[in-house]
């Protein structure tokens, strides 16, 4: 008798994402699916809007990574105008993007995932949150709040507002940076470095305690994709794409992201609003790839900043070839935070950073444009078509989290196969299913909005729909 387990939000009315697990006659897991249950329709609703509204509009896709959308969108608009933006504007946008990655990584690691790491996967759900971490490890919690705040304050200092600032515009940015603001940021760099390094040291001490999770949390071969500089270093703003395989071998390199329709496909599943991109030459679903911190650190030749490079050297020793366990997204995220702080420091100390030449102006000169950057969660792509008046006629967006859709599904399956047996479901299994999804830091508000700890109800159903076993969280 085959059975289906549904991990459903707390009641029918809660639904943002769900997980279903299929068992065979012998009580073994045969499949598991992650369903995203919200849809927002940006690709259509932007139709008819002036193209220069797009950065502000698409920032509203996501309040966790609005800057990522601002950047990718503004780059797409630059392409429509066919302008080369002033170098200082490039640097300022980069600082903004790095600050965004810093704050978002802090949110993911400290606010959302550290409760699992500090209190344990089997801890009482009542305490498994940031406030619980404050009680158990106040220094870590305060470092997290501080680092997120630092990232957000850099954004506010540059762009005037922490969330949905209007400063990034087609052609550059709307105002130059002032010396006092730059100094206010640079002054706090040493403190930021100290806090990230302290957290890294802590993480390196404790991750060994999670052996079973490391072995089963999305630990499988896949491709990894991300931007790199011309020298193969970590790149968050420009650059070209590189794809490596599970052994770390380069599959393709320095691919112009604008060619994506030739080699990237998007498949639709009947049971999720999240589409599943795949690498066309390997087909679907074999063309599974991962993006984001783990992918980026797997595919580069070096990071490109001194402290992060030291840490990266250790990270590289985790496994031969690419590091395959998605559990280590956490590790990669912390190393990237170090990179962000170092790189912000470098950029802000550049000789031209205070230049007031920060914006190129032009009417639209091309009817189609593509813009790509790295968001906290991975490669983000915007693609627009406009009419002669500059009004939007079409848009396609491949969101960072979407790239990981196939991998998240496969990871849920792997965790379920390892932790679910027969007709019994226990609390630990639920926590771990949540936790594996969380390693990807899915920014589902880009397509749905279940961030943090998903409310869950697990039901074990007989084929006729009879509830055989039920477990609620909380």
């Amino acid at each position, binding site marked *: 008798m085959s059975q289906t387990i549904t991990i459903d939000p707390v009641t029918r009315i809660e639904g943002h994402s769900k997980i279903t697990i299929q068992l065979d006659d012998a009580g073994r897991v045969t499949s598991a699916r992650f369903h995203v249950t919200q849809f927002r329709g940006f*690709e259509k609703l932007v139709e008819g809007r002036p193209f220069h509204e797009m950065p502000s509009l698409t920032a509203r896709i996501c*309040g966790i990574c609005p800057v990522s959308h601002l950047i990718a969108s503004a780059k797409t608009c630059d392409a429509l105008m066919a302008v080369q933006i002033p170098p200082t504007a490039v640097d300022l946008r980069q600082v903004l993007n790095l600050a965004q990655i810093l704050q978002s990584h802090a*949110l993911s690691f400290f*606010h959302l995932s550290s409760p699992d790491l500090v209190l344990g996967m089997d801890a009482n759900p009542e305490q498994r*949150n940031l*406030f619980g971490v404050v009680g158990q490890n106040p220094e870590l919690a305060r470092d997290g709040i501080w680092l997120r705040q630092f990232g957000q304050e850099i954004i506010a200092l540059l762009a005037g507002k*922490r969330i949905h600032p209007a400063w990034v515009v087609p052609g550059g940015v709307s105002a130059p940076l002032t010396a006092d603001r730059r100094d206010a940021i640079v002054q706090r760099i040493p403190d930021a470095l100290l806090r990230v390094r302290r957290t890294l040291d802590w993480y390196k001490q404790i991750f060994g305690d999670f052996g079973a999770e490391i072995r089963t949390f999305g630990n499988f071969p896949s491709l990894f994709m991300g931007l790199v500089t011309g020298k193969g270093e970590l790149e968050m703003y420009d650059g070209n794409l590189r794809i490596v395989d599970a052994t770390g071998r380069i599959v393709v390199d320095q691919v112009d992201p604008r060619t994506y329709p030739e080699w990237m496909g998007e498949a639709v599943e*009947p049971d999720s609003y999240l589409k599943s991109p795949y690498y066309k030459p390997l087909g679907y679903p074999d063309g599974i790839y991962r993006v984001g911190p783990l992918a980026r650190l797997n595919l580069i030749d070096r990071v490109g900043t001194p402290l992060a490079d030291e840490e990266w050297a250790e990270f590289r020793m985790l496994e031969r070839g690419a590091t395959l366990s998605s559990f280590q997204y956490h590790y990669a995220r912390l190393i990237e935070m170090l990179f962000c702080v170092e790189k912000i420091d470098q950029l802000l100390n550049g000789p031209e950073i205070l230049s007031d030449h920060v914006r190129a102006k032009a009417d639209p000169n091309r009817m189609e444009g593509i813009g790509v950057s790295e968001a906290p969660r991975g490669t983000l792509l915007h693609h627009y078509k406009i009419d002669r008046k500059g009004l939007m006629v079409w848009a396609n967006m491949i969101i960072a989290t979407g790239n990981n859709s196939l991998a998240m599904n496969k990871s849920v399956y792997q965790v379920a196969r390892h932790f679910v047996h027969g007709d019994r479901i226990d609390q630990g299994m639920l926590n771990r299913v949540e936790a594996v999804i969380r390693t990807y830091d899915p920014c589902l508000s880009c397509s749905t909005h279940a961030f943090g700890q998903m409310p869950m109800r697990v039901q074990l159903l007989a084929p006729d729909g009879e509830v055989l076993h039920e477990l609620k969280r909380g």
Partner: protein
Amino acid sequence: MSDKLKLATVWLDGCSGCHMSFLDIDERILDVAALADLVYSPLVDNKHFPEMVDITLVEGAVSSEDDYHKIRHVRQHTRILVSLGDCAVTANVPAMRNRFKVEAVLDRAYFENATLNQQIPVEVVPQLRKQSIPVHQVVPVDVFVPGCPPSADNIFYALTELLAGRTPELRTRTHFGA
């Protein structure tokens, strides 16, 4: 649980920016935690909306069947319901899809912009409603905090006033699109 007031935050069709702005009160979140228990929120691990909550902040418009049922449930179990941010207050960005038919919006994503297995997802996922509407068109709302998102200071102000049993005076502090 303690005798502190009960606070909840709910997320409908929004971008999470209002929740992020709430987190932007930074360390003051510990002050809030001293006055109230965050009993239900995407940020904490409690899975059930409690029997009665003193204050619930709602982000986002009502766009899907899930949103619709959820907000009605939340209203029944909340003393003071706060529309947090322009999406909750006016339906803002989500409402921009209202000038198209739902089918056309889905069509763009799942037929035109897909390369394999083109189809509209219908299994497991909730249906979209024809229109995306503000919260107060579905249930009565007690306090409106506009802004996209409202600033952390304004959220902190509104919250501490409400926790002190006063009605926050927001007209001079924030406005639509702030």
